[in-house]
């Protein structure tokens, strides 16, 4: 007779010393894990609730903000924690985001600061940081921001007069019109300015290299592509978006939309895509190779979208709007995943992602520069392995059960200001009535063309696209 029983020695499982970790053997046999689905669901529900509990997106404001509204914010692409802001009274501030204090503040322009950018570190001037600002006073100024220590500078006059010193005005370019928008080339010393004309400058020279204007209207914003370095886009007050190539020194394409574009941002991961902030409450995502239609339309705002910025990961955008809210969208979804607002925040004119995609900076009419988390529930402290695995596990669970009614309800719930809620209702009524009217019209007019939502905003393009797929499907329809 062969007899054997379970021989489990406690020496193998109980730790010898109290400091030792005890053995945790696993057995993945499903019979030992009853209710696995139900328990997983409960965990997912708890994780979702915790996520909402921890959702405290607002971190604080930078310093004491500006005296006037903040209308320009410039990221420093080479530095995680530095940021420049410009306000309506001509004051420019350079901030340390980690301490939330300002390095330096000076009055750079008479009138509004209309454009600001921190120049990238280019080959010829290694480890040198400069800032370019332009304003209504028809000047562009080049500032040195090499040093973090501006403490020896006591007054604006000193700052402006001390040439070649740290934190000083290096050069002034004089133009013949008020400027609107400025952006610097990623790798060489050229930059473009908007305004009555769109001009290409070189920081080594005092006069513009060329005038790239196409049409006679004002240019409100310009933006260089950070990957396809020689390409940039501009938006004008004639509701147009124009693409330029500085290798050929000419504009390449122009589209006109129904309403004005306030800001442009290129996708940092997909160089040919960009997103625009439009006056018609939407942001549009375009492919520069085919601008006959938008790739995506980001809806939800109830007033003009003033600014838009891409997350450095390229899969999320943040928009700031005249309706006093900030929204975050995933690029592959049409509606926002998040809405940020505070009682005191006025019309948002600027929103920027930080270069690690973890924070969002917003500048608004009330003069404050606010710092937000891009994931409202995330905390940036150092986490133990246990904590991290828990968070990762929870994220996976939330993803897995996101369509369950209870979980969806909790994760989607946001407090929205009454004004916005009301405005949304009114907007919905308006839109549905327009839709209804169109449906009625379609009932009587058989050949009324169907315009997809992604094409509605486009009035026309200068160079037409051969939209083969579309014509083909049209033909098919005709055959039917």
């Amino acid at each position, binding site marked *: *007779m*062969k*007899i*054997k*029983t*379970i*021989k*489990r*020695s*406690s020496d*193998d*499982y*109980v730790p010898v010393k109290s400091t030792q970790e*005890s*053995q*945790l*053997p*696993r*057995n*993945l*046999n*499903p*019979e*030992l*894990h*009853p*209710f696995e*689905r*139900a*328990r*997983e*669901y*409960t*965990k997912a529900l*708890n994780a979702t609730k915790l996520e909402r509990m921890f959702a405290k997106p607002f971190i604080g404001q930078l310093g004491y903000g500006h005296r006037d509204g903040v209308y320009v914010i410039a990221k420093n692409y080479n530095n995680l924690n530095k940021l420049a802001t410009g306000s309506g009274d001509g004051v420019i501030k350079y901030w340390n985001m980690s301490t939330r204090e300002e390095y330096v503040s000076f009055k750079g322009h008479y009138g509004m600061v209309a454009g600001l950018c921190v120049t990238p570190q280019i080959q010829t001037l290694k480890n040198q940081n400069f800032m370019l600002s332009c304003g209504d006073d028809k000047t562009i100024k080049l500032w040195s921001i090499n040093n973090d220590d501006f403490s020896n500078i006591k007054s604006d006059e000193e700052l402006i007069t001390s040439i070649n010193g740290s934190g000083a005005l290096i050069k002034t370019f004089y133009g013949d019109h008020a400027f609107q928008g400025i952006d610097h080339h990623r790798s060489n010393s050229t930059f473009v300015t908007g305004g009555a004309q769109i001009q290409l400058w070189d920081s080594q020279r005092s006069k513009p290299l060329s005038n790239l204007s196409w049409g006679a209207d004002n240019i409100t914003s310009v933006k260089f592509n950070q990957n396809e370095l020689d390409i940039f886009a501009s938006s004008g007050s004639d509701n147009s978006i124009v693409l330029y190539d500085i290798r050929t020194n000419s504009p390449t394409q122009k589209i006109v939309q129904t309403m004005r574009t306030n800001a442009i941002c290129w996708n940092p991961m997909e160089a040919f895509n960009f997103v625009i902030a439009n006056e018609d409450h939407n942001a549009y995502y375009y492919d520069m190779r085919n601008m006959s239609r938008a790739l995506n339309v980001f809806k939800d705002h109830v007033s003009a979208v003033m600014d838009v910025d891409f997350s450095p990961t390229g899969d999320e955008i943040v928009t700031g709007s005249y309706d006093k809210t900030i929204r975050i969208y995933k690029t592959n979804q049409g509606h926002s995943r998040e809405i940020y607002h505070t009682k005191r925040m006025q019309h948002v004119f600027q929103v920027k992602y930080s270069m690690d995609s973890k924070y969002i900076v917003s500048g608004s009419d009330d003069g404050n520069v606010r710092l937000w988390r891009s994931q409202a529930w995330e905390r940036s402290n150092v986490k133990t392995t246990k904590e991290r695995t828990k968070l990762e596990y929870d994220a996976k669970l939330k993803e897995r*059960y996101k369509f*369950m009614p209870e979980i969806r309800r909790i994760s989607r719930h946001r407090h929205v200001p009454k004004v916005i809620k009301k405005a949304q209702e009114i907007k919905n009524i308006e839109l549905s009535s327009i839709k209804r009217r169109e449906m009625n019209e379609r009932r009587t007019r058989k050949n009324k063309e169907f315009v997809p939502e992604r094409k509605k905003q486009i009035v026309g393009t200068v160079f037409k696209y051969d939209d083969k797929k579309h014509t083909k499907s049209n033909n098919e329809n005709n055959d039917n």
Partner: protein
Amino acid sequence: MATKKSGKEKNAKPVASGRKQRQKERQEPFVRPVTSHKRGSHKTKDKKLKATLKKLDNKYRDAVRSAAATEYLLPETSGYMEAETEMEKTFRVKQEEIKSNVDVSTANKALDLSLKEFGPYYTNYSRSGTHLLISGRKGHVASMDWRKGELRAELHLNESCYAATYLQNEQYFAIAQKKYTFIYDHEGVELHRMKQHIEARHLEFLPYHYLLATAGETGWLKYHDVSTGVLVSELRTKLGPTVSMKQNPWNAVMHLGHSNGTVTLWSPSMPQPLVKLLSGRGPINDLAVDRSGRYMVTVDTGKTMKIWDIRNFKELHVLENLPTPGMNVTISDTGVIGMGRGPQLILWKDALKTSREAKPCFGSMGGQKDRNTPYMTQLFGGNRINNMKFVPFEDILSVGHETGITHLIIPGAGEANYDAMEINPYETAKQRQEQEVRTLLNKLPADSITLDPNTLGTVSQQSSSIRLSAKQLHQVTLEKEEAIKKNADIPSVKPNVKGKNSGLRTYLRKRTQNVIDERKLRVQKQLAKEKEQRRRNNMIKSGEISADHKDIVDEALSRFS
């Protein structure tokens, strides 16, 4: 045993597909029941969805494969007892023989507590198997760490005690006493007297729902949430005193055995039983459900023992005409069935299968092969078994009888490899505390108890069939309108029945008098028509008018009515 089995199959199957077959077999226990998405993925036209579904399928397949692969890593092997020659029979082996053949630590586990005064004894174990809770019918209760031999609490209640169970861990236990059910802590301090649970005779604790279920003389099944102290539900069985009760550990459904031979399955959210099945001719003395929730064994006073497949509620095996009726039955983690008949105890192995060879039988069956002869037997001479319990994660069957508790060594009865993330027999106090918090956080709602525990998170296939398409909806409305036009929704006109029996009159009488709606108007109109026809019929019968009489004036005026 295991090697023998695989050898047999190797001969049966062709060699080429043998490897794949073995792999498939290995993975089988880890395969979850397939939900509908697998079939749907081929139908959808949405490329993105198709890709996601495919990715999910692959992920799932990978998970199954890697879970099956971890079997090599299991540190322990389960026990066994095998006959080496034809003449040897495992059921002839005595406990003394086993004790002398196994190692000292196992032999030491075979305790024999002789408690002659307060019997018969009821035994129960904590979920980890470390703690033993005994309660004598005459009021002797003790909780102990039986492996270390440490007594945690000992009580003399001077009151009848019928059942005892630990709650979420060994820190609390509940006792069904003469009138009420009480909860005590680990030191034996009375914490709660549960006055709603009157004359409970059976206790079961559902660890994942934190529910204490009681049933007994009153015929009520009551669920009490022990984490919040709320009585979750009271269910009236309407079948007299409950004779036996066990939980299904797979889906937390309660199985109740009744004196008329029925077994009813209950969930706290349903006032009626989920299932009612007739399993015996007499009272169901005891029942047991295996841990996978697939099989149930019942014994009744009608001298039968039945093994049920409760996935489709079909009998696997029926043993009729036992010499004496079975009084107790239990199933171990590995599927060993133990059946007690007064002083006798018989155990069968591998009986939870459909094949005829699996059918349990008594004795050596004249040496016939392919018969499931008893695995082990034991006789408690001059004694009577009160209850039995397999100790979790041990090869031990604990028997509570008239004169105490006896541990029998049953090789191959226990699960050798525990999962420390689930139940840890070697957990420290700190781990126990953390585990308690964790299980409380993950507590499942009581109303989620259903026959299929995996319904949650699946797509309801019913809803789409309930929802009507626009076309169908149009059809339905049309039909309704048509019915109203034809007065098909109200009782029909019957001029030949007596006035009081008119359906229309009954309808009007049953309606609230002072509410007048469109339907009522129509009924009134029809009723008037009926009366008129009846009057006319009567007149024809009495010969006042001929059958083809036409009242011209009436006809002319009727167009205005």
